[in-house]
């Protein structure tokens, strides 16, 4: 699976980091083999070899001069790389701003300015156009989290009360995966997300669909699901634009049916997993902030809510 690998970069920053990784790996391997060779020479090479190896000249050359030179060169290279990682694309197209807020244990993604009264809000999935600078403005609502998309950049901490900013860019379309990389509580290990890089026209099409409110239920079963969603109190935590429900404690569900995963990259997304998650969220991700709703929905209502959410594409 190359969707989440530093060694499978998909953008310029990712390329630089992958090169550095290979440089360190190769350099480390060469030095390791050299040290191994010296040990073997010392053990098996006879007195002449041992005399050379323990001579002052050899020790100063190998133990002082060599590390000083190599590490100084490496330091200058890394400083240059760090500078390159923070520079924007030449050409001056303003970056697309995406705001990410980390919660226990999900990701809130906002596209400011994309709606008249605010912006598109989604969860656990970051869609970006290729070939354009993306400015991520990240923070957290509760504890420190960290965002890492190995194919695109290094880790960015999400710190409550503080906004960190990072420029990044994807050069090729595709789906990548990222994870929370700062221990944040019981379900830190199940706090992942997908990044979908689109060609620019496809990104605009996606954004256009996300701007729309939830479509009206197409049949009676889906309408029953929508009603059961309200009666069970789901709107207290979740927003579905186009309905009366504007809860902000959990992910925005306006287009939940269009996402690649549920529960922050943990589950596939279809009516079966939706029903299982709603009825048994605490079985699947114990300690996450959503209770298991089996007690509040009878069998038919559960199926109807799951089908309705699945239809919100």
């Amino acid at each position, binding site marked *: 699976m190359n969707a989440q690998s530093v060694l499978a970069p998909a953008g310029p920053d990712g390329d630089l980091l992958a090169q550095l990784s290979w440089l360190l790996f190769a350099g480390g391997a060469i030095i390791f083999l050299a040290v191994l060779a010296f040990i073997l020479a010392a053990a098996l090479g006879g007195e002449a070899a041992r005399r050379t190896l323990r001579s002052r000249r050899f020790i100063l050359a190998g133990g002082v001069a060599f590390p000083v030179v190599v590490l100084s060169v490496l330091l200058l290279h890394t400083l240059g790389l760090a500078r390159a990682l923070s520079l924007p694309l030449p050409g001056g197209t303003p970056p697309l701003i995406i705001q990410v807020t980390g919660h226990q244990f999900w990701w809130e993604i906002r596209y400011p300015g994309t709606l008249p009264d605010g912006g598109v809000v989604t969860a656990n999935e970051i869609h970006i156009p290729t070939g354009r600078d993306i400015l991520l403005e990240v923070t957290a609502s509760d504890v420190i989290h960290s965002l890492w998309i190995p194919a695109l950049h290094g880790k960015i901490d999400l710190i409550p009360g503080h906004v960190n900013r990072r420029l990044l860019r994807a050069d090729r379309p595709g789906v990548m995966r990222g994870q929370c990389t700062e221990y944040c509580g019981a379900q830190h290990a199940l706090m992942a997300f997908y990044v979908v890089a689109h060609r620019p026209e496809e990104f605009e099409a996606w954004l256009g669909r996300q701007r729309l409110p939830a479509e009206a239920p197409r049949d009676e079963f889906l309408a029953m699901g929508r009603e059961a969603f309200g009666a069970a109190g789901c709107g207290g935590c979740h927003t579905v634009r186009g309905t009366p429900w504007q809860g902000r404690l959990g992910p925005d569900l306006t287009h939940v049916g269009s996402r690649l995963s549920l529960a922050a990259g943990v*589950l596939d997304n*279809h*009516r*079966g*997993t939706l029903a*299982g*998650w709603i009825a048994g969220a605490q079985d699947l991700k114990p300690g996450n902030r959503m209770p298991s709703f089996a007690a509040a929905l009878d*069998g*038919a209502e559960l199926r109807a809510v799951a*089908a309705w959410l699945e239809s919100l594409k």
Partner: protein
Amino acid sequence: MLLAACLTLGGCGEEAMPAQHRLQGADAAAGRRLVIEHDCGVCHVIPGLRGARSHVGPSLAGFGGRGYIAGVLPNTPDNLVRWLLDPPAIAPMTAMPDLGLREQEARHIAAYLTTMR
């Protein structure tokens, strides 16, 4: 008659079941892969599947020996296939959705479930 006799005489093994009641051409190994692919573990504890630990629906441990499916339908291979293809059609109050399985997929899954003793 023979079927009724077999069912009442508890000592009959699978070999005694008339051929048309067995799952012809169904593969339990394929059924196991389909169970993973369709995320059955999201609601059911399934022995031998890591991560299938949810208590939304009943555990499927020992399912092969269970008397009834969902408490309403006698647990035979053919009934199990019918159930998997459309649970709400058989039990309107069930919480288990119609998962859009194809007939052959349901047969493979039924073959897998009947091996759980």
